[in-house]
Each structure stands twice: as structure tokens, then as C-alpha cells.
């Protein structure tokens, strides 16, 4: 079960939907899971570590809340706009630079290896 499945499985994903779960924050055991939790979020956890964490998650509100924080960070970072590089295409500037270099030192050019 991946992070997505877990959130869907738990309906709204709202941590307050689980009254029976402990809400005291991360226990010592949870802290031991925290590095694995980050890898689990990325779908990169495997083997025994994955099985252990998957057994722990359904009963742990703190870890699930942590997963949601990771998702919020991801949502924020993926919303960052990608901007075009400057007013002038890089290729144009690059061609000029390479032509100048070839002029100064014909050993370095031309535009072929």
C-alpha cells in the first residue's frame, strides 16, 4: 500500500477523522520511522522496512499527519513556476561564445567534436 492508497483508504485524509488514534505527537517508535516515512512517501521504501511501516501506519495518527505535511510541501514546491531563460535564447548566446572561441583558438572549434 502506497501513500495515495492510505489517504484514499482513510477517506478525507483528515487526521481528526480517527478519534481512537493517539494524538500526542511522535512517539519514540515513530521517530525511528521518520527517515523511512520520507522514503515511503517517495515510493522508495522496500523489503522489511516497507512491511514494518505499513503495519505501523494504520494505527498511527502522527505518522499519517507527517505524510500529509510531506504532501503539502510537495504541492507547494511543484507549484513553483518554471521561467524561460532571460530575454535572449541561450542557444544564441552560446553560438556567439563558441564562434569567438574558435576565432581566438581554432584548435577549440568548430562546432563539431
Amino acid at each position, binding site marked *: 500500500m502506497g501513500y495515495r492508497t492510505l*489517504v484514499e483508504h482513510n477517506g*478525507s*485524509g*483528515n487526521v481528526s477523522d480517527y478519534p481512537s488514534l493517539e494524538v500526542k505527537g511522535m512517539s519514540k517508535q515513530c521517530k525511528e520511522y*521518520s*527517515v523511512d516515512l*520520507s*522514503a515511503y512517501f*517517495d515510493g*522508495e521504501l522496500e523489503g522489511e522496512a516497507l512491511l514494518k511501516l505499513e503495519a505501523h501506519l494504520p494505527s498511527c495518527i502522527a505518522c499519517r499527519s507527517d505524510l*500529509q*505535511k*510531506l*504532501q*503539502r*510541501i*510537495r*504541492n*507547494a*514546491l*511543484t*507549484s*513553483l*513556476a*518554471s*521561467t*524561460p*531563460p*532571460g530575454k535572449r*535564447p*541561450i*542557444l544564441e*548566446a*552560446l553560438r556567439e*561564445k*563558441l564562434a569567438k572561441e574558435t576565432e581566438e583558438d581554432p584548435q577549440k572549434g*568548430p*562546432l*563539431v*567534436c
Partner: protein
Amino acid sequence: MQKKQTAVVGGSPILPQQAPPLRKDDELIASFKAGDSTAFDDLVLKYERRVYNHCLRMVSDEVESYDLAQEVFLKVFRKIKNYEHTYSFYTWLYRITVNCCIDYLRKKRRHIQEVSLSSSPGEDQGEVCKDQDIPDLTFIPETALVNQELGDTLNAAIAQLSEKLRVIIILKEVEGFTYEEIAEVLACSRGTVKSRLFRARERLKELLADYMNIHRDSAK
């Protein structure tokens, strides 16, 4: 705002259906090695935006990022004949990009240390306050300003991470690399990727605490 590019792994971004098919990286490299200089142009055009944006996230300066992106492609141009297919071109390109950014940041840090030791405060301001550094907000609509504010908050948080944590969070969350690909780009182990990503996220949780409280619902 542009959404995250998915499926960039292996160097082939998903393109609109009407766009002409791009030549694959391997084909472009082979053509370039065989003497077709337009193949190199195609590689630059294909990746310039991603390289530039990676530099921008790393160094937070548009002018420097433009120069850095040029430097990256100059290095690619000079080294491509030695490029081996041990890694994908995409990974190799990012390795060069990351190294250029780290070199730049190290030089800059050294320069700042030297300046702070040798000059009085304010002396260097003429250099720092270039025209390009001052954004022109005159015609930006209100919604864009809100988005810009969020962007500024995020970029400020990224800029506060150490270089090692910054590069790894960008490769993962902005570029969408897998752990294996990040390990190839940074020449480190998968375990290092895992632990550094964890540390980067812990730090971001602290730095973005206010933002996270406001946007609690966005994880659904």
C-alpha cells in the same frame, strides 16, 4: 503557474500531441558526434529551460543563472565526445549543472568572505544593485502578486537550505528524479539520498511552518 513536469525521466518530456516528434537524446548525440551541429542546438533547445531553472533555484539570481546555463552547455559541448552511456544523457547533464552551481556558490562564498574582510560596509553596493535585480511589479495583476508572494516564500525557504539539502530537494520535488537518478547525479549512495532528503524535508517543515498551517487542506 506551471505545473510540475511529469515523466521527464530519461529526458523525454511529455509534449503536446501536435508537436513534431523530437529526436531522442542518443540519436542527437550520435548525430552531433558525426558532425551534425544542429543536433547540439536541438539538445540545448530541449534542455535549456530546465537547466536554467535548476540554476535559478540553486543560486536565486536570474543573470547568474543565465550565465551558468551557458557554462553548462559549453561544458556539455566540450565533453560530449567523452560521454559514455553509463548514465542517461539527462543524468549526465544534471551532474554538470549541479557541479557548475556548486562551484559558483563556493566561489561566491569565498568572494563574500574576502570582501567582508577587506572593505567597509556598503562599499560594494554598486555591484550588487544591478538594474536586473529589481523586479518591475507595475503591471502584475493582483492574483499574480499573490502567487508571486507564495513563490517568494518558497524560494526564500529553499535558499535557506544548505547547498547539499537544496540540491537534493530540487532534484526530487521540482525535477521529479528517482533516488537512483539522484544518486547518479550526485555520485553518492541511495542511502545518502534517503537521509539527506529526510533532513531537507525536516528543515523545510520548520521554514514553511506558517505556510503549512495556512494550507492545511492542500494535501488532500
